[in-house]
């Protein structure tokens, strides 16, 4: 990353987003690593263990999906990675985040903010709320450009128009003068993407980028992200609760439960051979889109864990059909399944002999070790 990059790509060339691609770290090496990330909130009710010891590595140009239900800690984790959550004042953080050789976790707020927008960008779930309702689209776009690039206001405005065009927004000249509420949901999300990409970041954190959108628009936005990501060779951390969304759009998947990564694997492998019962359950709980209707859905009993008083042992054990006594007391470590790329956290993994036995035993006694039928 050199500063030369700052001066180019503004003049309104066809592909404003492409600038600087050549200088990127070669694909495959780690762009960002997060090690043993812990985030705890000290509240009146007790300590909320939002994220407990999560480690990931995102390679340049790859899409890593973090999947989990509400309360799994995926959002907190993402924000901690970016540094938007910092310690102090009742928030406890541990672990290190290294971005391209720089330890982000050791930087001051001011130093961190130099990376934000320029190197690492963020898009959020709801484009309705993530754009400032009282500022024009153009303003919200140009302020980042002016902040991070040495350009004049006019150049920034030009670039803003180009950016809007490149995210597929019609009439970009008109759009820059509009306010967020004048656009539809999909258009708004395109704008937030344009903002995120305005300074050619090398890492995009997309936190549920399509959850608030309708299915047809969701498809459009996912296509757009995939297209931009591959064209720009930009790494992406895609956070979502919907496994189906990431199946075709990620290189690797990390499944989070109760603030921990419970399974991580290359996408095809995860779908083909899930090891963690939770991953399996998550896949099966979704009503299928083919086959007969009125199918009795497989249920994950119980409710997501309370992060203040998480269960002992394996956090999924109270809801797990495989759970044995050991699961209730001992928390399984992340184990490798074949390669270092596929790791999971389970004593009785799906498809394994122990797993089959454990399940059979539970079927036999009519309940799991945790007492769940």
């Amino acid at each position, binding site marked *: 990353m050199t500063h030369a990059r700052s001066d180019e790509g503004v003049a309104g060339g066809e592909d404003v987003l492409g600038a600087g691609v050549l200088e990127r770290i070669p694909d495959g090496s780690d762009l960002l690593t997060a090690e043993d990330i812990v985030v705890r909130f000290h509240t009146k009710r007790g300590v909320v263990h939002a994220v407990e010891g999560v480690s990931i590595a995102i390679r340049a140009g790859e899409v890593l999906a973090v999947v989990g239900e509400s309360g799994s800690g995926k959002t907190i984790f993402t924000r901690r990675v970016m540094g938007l959550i910092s310690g102090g004042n009742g928030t406890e953080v541990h672990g290190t985040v290294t971005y391209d050789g720089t330890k982000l976790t050791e930087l001051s707020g001011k130093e961190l903010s130099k990376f934000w927008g320029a190197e690492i960008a963020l898009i959020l779930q709801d484009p309705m709320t993530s754009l400032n309702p009282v500022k024009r689209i153009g303003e919200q776009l140009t302020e980042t450009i002016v902040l991070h690039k040495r350009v004049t206001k006019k150049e920034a405005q030009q670039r803003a128009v180009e950016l809007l065009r490149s995210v597929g927004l019609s009439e970009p000249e008109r759009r820059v003068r509009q306010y967020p509420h004048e656009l539809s949901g999909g258009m708004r999300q395109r704008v937030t993407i344009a903002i995120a990409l305005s300074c050619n970041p090398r890492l995009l954190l997309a936190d549920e980028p399509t959850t608030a959108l309708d299915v047809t628009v969701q498809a459009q936005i996912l296509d757009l992200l995939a297209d931009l990501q591959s064209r720009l060779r930009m790494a992406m951390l895609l956070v979502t609760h919907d496994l189906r969304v990431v199946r075709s759009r990620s290189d690797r998947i990390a499944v989070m439960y109760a603030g921990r990564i419970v399974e991580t694997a290359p996408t095809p492998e995860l779908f083909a051979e899930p090891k963690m019962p939770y991953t399996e359950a998550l896949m099966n709980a979704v009503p299928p889109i083919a086959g007969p209707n009125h199918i009795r*859905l497989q249920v994950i009993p119980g409710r997501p864990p309370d992060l203040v008083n998480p269960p002992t042992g394996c956090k999924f054990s109270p809801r797990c059909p495989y759970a044995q006594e050991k699961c209730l007391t001992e928390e399984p470590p992340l184990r490798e399944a074949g390669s270092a790329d596929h790791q999971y956290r389970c004593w009785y993994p799906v498809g394994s002999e122990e797993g089959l036995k454990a399940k059979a035993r539970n079927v036999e006694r009519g309940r799991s070790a945790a007492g769940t039928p």
Partner: protein
Amino acid sequence: MTAARTERPAVAGAEQDGSESDVVLRLEDLVVEFPAGGGQTVHAVSGISLEVHRGETLGLVGESGCGKSTTGRAIMQLPKPTGGKVVFEGRDITKLSASELRELRPKLQMIFQDPISSLNPRRRIPDIVGDPLVVWGRGAEKEKIVPEVLSAVGLDPAQVADRRPHQFSGGQCQRVSIARALVLEPEVLICDEPVSALDVSVQAQILNLLEDMKARYGLTLVFIAHDLGVVRNISDRVAVMYLGKICELGETEALFDDPVHPYTRLLVSSIPSMETVTGADIEKADRGRGEMPSPINPPSGCRFRTRCPLADERCAAEVPEMREVRPGRYVACHHPILEPVGAAAAAEGA
């Protein structure tokens, strides 16, 4: 995604013959409009007609703003529709007086999207569930009926006795809502996005519960949702709505496997694919152009024409009539896609 599916249950309303006597609810040319700011009118529902058969589950699907929830509420007369008829058990309930309508209410119940918002935070669970009985002067039966219904929806009556809604999770709250709707033993239950606010792991519990309740209480369901997978699974027949109009109606499996209306097709193809997508795929995929226009100012003619790849002058000039293109399959389109099996659905079904 084939593991651990149970077999298709025998209870399926679709097999019924659909004769007039079985129609429990009929919408005729239902119109709902309400004023928007700036002296404009939102054309939320613009003349839809449907029949709901006794014992079936009719799915109503579409993207947000298409008018599906408005239709649900219009059936409930909350508020009364702007035009058209809602015929329930042979009577047009839009013409009923307030007191006559009130008499009818127990037979027509509704559950809502937001389980938290559906329950009064200041009241205890048994009071919430028992309130309809009190309203109907059956307060004395509360002690008996409420625990029954609570058990039926999978809650322990003793455990919930002194609790208030905030002490429960979303899924449990939705169970309470269902219990409240069932306590009057309705005939028709309108479910307005009942699971869209729930986590995947809980969603399945509620869907199964609804199926169970339907069987146990002999309900007819109108199931409104935007999640195609959910609708597909629970419905016998599905009506697809777009911008205040129904564009396609038919039996669930057939409709999803072989969509005839271009919009249905777009919808089905937009479901996240389970196949890995490459750049080339993206180039090929026709995701449709843009988004649904505003219901304040809907397009002339066919409302989908602004996004439809097949649209021509006729679509702009002429509102397509609903017609039966196959037995039980109705579509409102000038250019229905009638070749056998849709490409997207084929890929999915393989």
